[in-house]
């Protein structure tokens, strides 16, 4: 059996057998290397790849953005933010459901994780929503879907991982994700407003707060405004790199917790432990995926696939549809990061050959991963929200499905209007 097929077979069998993704990718990559080189060269390459991959300054942004979100989460700084967002959007059809989207979008701009967003808003906002008699499915769906904004609105861990795998500028990806993220949040909000206007039983009518009350609530969001200013402003103004603003953001999150009198060393320690856990988990699969992709390069597999696609005369549109279909199916069963490390080394050369912009594709892949977070049986946000609210999983899934349709709509919009993602990075970075 040719080594290429043997390596692919081992990878698929190990992944299907439930072996840890990092172990499966790393071991199959190693076996492939040992087949074409020899044992000692293969061991040497493993050591070299892990050193070069894990000492990349760009990837330092991952633990720093995770820490920023975790500090905000563990110290409870986000709690009052939800109530203030609710006051600002009060009177808009949908009431607290609109607050879910607004608070999730705000949290997304201060955290790179969708799970942290869904867990925070779910634990802070849902008890109040349940008390006031909102329809459960749409309430749960708005939080689960709102949480996914965390990976599209920068800063985003998914963009950093994609940038590292596809060798695309992370700053450019952050810029590209902003407008589609805000448009998606607006689509969620419009959907909630229309549904609630058509069916008044979905949401009780909340009385609009006075202008003064709204202004005071807006003033109470100074912490978030400061973080957004430092993180997004720093990148967009070209003052600092994503890694540097990530570190500044995490330090600022600690200072905000201190000023808000919510800081404790126990919370900081928990945030640190969670950061170590997530960083190690993410970078372990990136590093082992790199071993496999080095092996594939030895086999000249990406070049062979590109050649085959070119010879078959497959159009760019067909490739795009194919990628979407693959991600939709994989997203039902596989974690977003794992999905990306397994597919991006193959997809990127194909996209590149088909003349697709890799930054634009990164945004599309990010939305597809968002869809994966909401589609059963392995939609992570569904489980997180069900765990936090203790509601029926059926209600969480039912409520999330219309938002999945909106996510597909934004992909269609990105296809027809690529400038939605690409205009801002071109404007700022040339």
């Amino acid at each position, binding site marked *: 059996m040719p080594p290429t097929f043997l390596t692919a077979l081992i990878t698929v069998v190990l992944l*299907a057998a439930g072996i840890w993704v990092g172990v499966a990718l790393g071991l199959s990559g190693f076996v492939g290397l040992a087949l074409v080189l020899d044992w000692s060269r293969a061991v040497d390459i493993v050591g070299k790849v892990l050193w070069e991959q894990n000492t990349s300054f760009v990837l330092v942004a991952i633990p720093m953005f995770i820490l920023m979100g975790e500090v905000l989460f563990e110290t409870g700084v986000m709690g009052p933010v939800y109530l203030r967002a609710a006051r600002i959007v009060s009177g808009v059809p949908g009431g607290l459901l609109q607050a879910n989207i607004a608070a999730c979008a705000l949290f997304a701009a201060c955290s790179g994780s969708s799970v942290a967003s869904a867990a925070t808003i779910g634990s802070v906002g849902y008890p109040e929503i349940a008390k006031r008699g909102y329809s459960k499915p749409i309430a749960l769906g708005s939080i689960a879907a709102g949480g996914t904004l965390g990976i599209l609105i920068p800063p985003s861990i998914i963009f950093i991982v994609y940038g590292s795998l596809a060798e695309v500028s992370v700053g450019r990806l952050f810029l590209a994700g902003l407008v589609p993220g805000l448009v998606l949040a607006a689509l969620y909000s419009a959907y909630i407003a229309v549904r609630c206007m058509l069916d008044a039983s979905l949401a009780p009518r909340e009385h609009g707060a006075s202008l003064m009350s709204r202004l005071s609530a807006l003033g109470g969001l100074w912490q978030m405004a400061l973080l957004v200013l430092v993180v997004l402003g720093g990148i967009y103004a070209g003052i600092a790199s994503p890694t540097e603003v990530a570190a500044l953001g995490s330090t600022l999150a600690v200072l905000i917790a201190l000023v808000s009198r919510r800081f404790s060393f126990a919370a900081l320690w928990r945030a640190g432990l969670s950061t170590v856990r997530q960083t190690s988990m993410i970078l372990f699969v990136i590093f082992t995926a790199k071993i496999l992709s080095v092996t594939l390069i030895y086999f000249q597999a990406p070049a062979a696939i590109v050649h085959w696609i070119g010879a078959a005369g497959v159009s760019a549109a067909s490739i795009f549809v194919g990628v979407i279909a693959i991600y939709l199916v994989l997203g039902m069963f596989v974690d977003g990061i794992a999905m990306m490390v397994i597919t991006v080394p193959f997809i990127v050369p194909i996209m590149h050959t088909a003349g697709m912009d890799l930054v634009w594709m990164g945004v599309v892949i990010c939305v597809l991963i968002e869809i994966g977070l909401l589609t059963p049986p392995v939609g992570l946000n569904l489980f997180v929200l069900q765990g936090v609210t203790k509601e029926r999983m059926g209600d969480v899934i039912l409520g999330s499905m219309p938002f999945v349709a909106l996510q597909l709509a934004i992909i269609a919009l990105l296809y027809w209007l690529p400038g939605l993602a690409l205009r801002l990075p071109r404007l700022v970075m040339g």
Partner: protein
Amino acid sequence: MRKLLDRGVAAAATLLAAAGVLCVMALMLLVTSDVVARYGFNNPSNWADEGAAFLLIAIVFLGLAQNLRQGSHIRIDVFTGPLPTRAKAVLELIAYGVGVLFSVVLVLGTWTRFENFWSRNITGDSPLMTPLWMPMVPVVAGAAVFGLVMLAGFVAQLHALFARRASQGET
């Protein structure tokens, strides 16, 4: 013996994860202070980027073993989830066996790099000229404890399988 191995690797994994938290805090302070020094005092350090990269690799490997113990590493269980309990137990044993094999590769790979840096006295590019074997110490330690946790998991799975078979034989 098995319990001793379990306790030993649990303690080592917890200790490494705690060291990882300290590295996270150091990373935050290092990069922040560098940015402040650059923009506030026009005095950037020329070693902060390198130091940050060394801390990153340490965080990754210091967290590996604890993640394995706590079930935080990503797995695809969509095919194995519906299987009967016994089949799952056998697959889990195989998973740990494969994990032990990969750990051997990982330890050898990291050790080879460490030895290469040590024997050739290779240093970093920054003016600090940090000997590169130093940042490799937590990497080798993390890979080794990861391997030990895999081994402890393998032994525990094997023990559980034999214990189940013995109890079935008695009934």
